[in-house]
């Protein structure tokens, strides 16, 4: 838990572009909320690695959103089932169903469809919200957080220092 908090604070307090952090979190949302072993997550992984996305934010977000996914499964199931059985979309789904790649993607599974639709739908709005929140945080809260006792304790801890040292070796 401390490690997770330290990670979060470090990411937020760094000079990293808020867009990179937000994008990392949003990609994490897609990968975390949808079943991990899905074909689209291979694409997400490729984008996360090729685009200059903050990897710490992605990994942190992945852990959080994966946990959240278990709670949201009933919602994803209902949403996915509604989308897959919507009369207006039948023809479209039937065309996709003939493609082996889409079948491998398992778009016809209610949870895959529900979670993917949910996470893609929230992708852009959340990207903007995360961006805004990070900027506001850095502008109004960062200085106060740096002075808090918990932050001082964290900075003084051996774990944080080690983490700082290791992190500094990591590129961009």
């Amino acid at each position: 838990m401390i490690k997770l908090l330290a990670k979060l604070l470090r990411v937020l307090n760094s000079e990293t572009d808020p867009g990179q952090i937000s994008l990392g979190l949003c990609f994490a949302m897609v990968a975390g909320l949808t079943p991990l072993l899905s074909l689209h997550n291979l694409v997400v992984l490729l984008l996360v690695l090729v685009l200059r996305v903050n990897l710490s934010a992605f990994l942190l977000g992945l852990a959080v959103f994966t946990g959240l996914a278990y709670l949201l499964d009933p919602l994803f199931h209902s949403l996915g089932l509604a989308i897959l059985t919507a009369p207006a979309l039948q023809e479209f789904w039937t065309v996709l169903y003939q493609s082996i790649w889409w079948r491998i993607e398992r778009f016809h599974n209610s949870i895959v469809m529900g979670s993917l639709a949910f996470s893609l739908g929230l992708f852009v709005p959340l990207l903007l919200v995360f961006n805004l929140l990070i900027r506001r945080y850095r502008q109004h809260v960062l200085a106060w957080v740096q002075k808090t006792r918990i932050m001082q304790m964290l900075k003084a801890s051996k774990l944080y220092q080690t983490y700082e040292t290791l992190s500094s070796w990591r590129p961009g």
Partner: protein
Amino acid sequence: MTKWLRWWGLGAFLVVVAVIGLLWIVFVDGWVKRLIENAGTAVVGAQVELDHADLTVFPVGLTLTRLQVTDPQAPMTNAVEVARIAMGLDGLNLLQRKVIVEEMSVEGVRLGTSRTTSGAVKPVQETTADEKGLFGISLPSLEVPDVKTVLQHEELETMRLIEDLKTDLKQEKAAWEARLQDLPGKTEVAKYKERIRQLKAATKGGLEGMLSGVEEVQSLKEEIDRDVQALKDARKAFDEKIALLKTRLEQIKTAPKRDIQHIQAKYNLSPQGLANMSQTLLGSEIGSWVHQGVAWYERAKPFLEGAQAMRSREGGPEVQKPLRGKGVDVHFPEEHPLPDFLIRLARVSLNLAVGDLAGTIHHVTSDQPTLGKPLTFAFGGERLKGVNAVTLEGTLNHMVPAQSRDRLTLKAKGYELADVALSKDAKWPVTLQRGLGDITMDATLQGRALTAQGSSHFRALQLSAGVSGDTNPLTRSLSSALSGISQFSLAAEVAGTLDQYDVKVTSDFDRILQDAAGKIVNELAARFGDELQAAISAKIAEPMKQVQEALGEFHAIGGDLGDRFAQHNEVLNSLLEKSLPSKSLKKLPGGLKLPF
């Protein structure tokens, strides 16, 4: 733009993918092996083991080495052991979890191989070994049982009927004696006579006096009529009861014959015991083979129909039963539907004790409704050890699960039989030393309705029967008859359902045995019958005498009823004769008609 790209990420992605691929290649063989073993064990109900599984990527294929399927009824034996199975897989379909095998080669199939360790996954029900041999012959008894001992242990129908009749006679007698008390008798007759005398005295005053007594005469006549009617009804009921009791007595007289037949059959001293011996002996054996076949069929059936069987075949999207946390798969119509598992063609070579058989199996699938083709198979072999030629063909059609139709045809020509123990009975062992058989069997299963016909002809037979120094005339006679048999035919018919079926076996073997032993058994049966007849007659003599005496006592009751009836009629006539001044009235023109 480059601010947003990191090219080393592409390399990292490739490394990640390569690592995943490498891990898959390293572990997939073990995963496939465990998958096959676990799924097979669950299906068969006994351990299914695989020495090695090798999944190749280029081209996509799977090779299984030494597959062992334990016989659930004999855990130290493999029902099937296959040396090598090689198959080419459709890679893209495999990625979407469909196992589509275009061609499979199954080599070195052996049946009934022994295992080093037990393959049981659950306790095996102990079955007692059948020591009777192939044909567990139980011959008619060869000794006349002691009649006294037999009768001590038998509940004779005759005795039961006698006791019942005795009880009923006693009850009926008491009932009729009580009824006689209530019926009009001598007292009533005397009273009527007295009243008639008084009436006669009152009518001496001529026609005027007679007319004044008409009302009294009418009343008296009605009373006597009622009594006569009551006696008439009682007599009728009595006659019916007596007739019934006499019928029962007649039935008792024929009961000893039935008792004798029953006892003769029970002690196997009926010549009918030899009339259909092939049914008695082979019926259960063939029934046991059918039972084993049905058990294996029931195991395989769910995999012929698969989960698709539960799905409707209409074009709309179909939702499968949801699994918790896994969601549900919504299925849409496919242009070229394929089942989840399909082997289009399997070439199989069987290494049996008799030699090698080769054959093909088409369309092995877990989902025939989707494939739209039935499973077909054909195996054959020629010049095998012990059989000239054998063919096995069949179709398992479960395309419409509710109207499934399976068919199996087996033909074997020149099947050599050697040293087959037909009976291991210590008193009369029978061994088929040598012979040739031609066997044809055709079985059809429609839904759960099973019909099967089998016919076989055995020739060039050499049978040995009996033991040296046999003194028993029956077994000596049978042994002699069997030694002379050089050929016989056998027909079997199975009909019913998978749960309940009847096996009928007919053979000219029966006639041969009956001809040989029928006379001896008949003689023994006749002797036993005579002894039984004498013993039963002696046993029932006294009770029968008692019954007849009890029945004789009813004659007195019948006589009494008759007397009472006659006396009342006499009184009635006397009333009509004596109460009327007939002489003067008869002189009137047309006589006098009384108003009653």
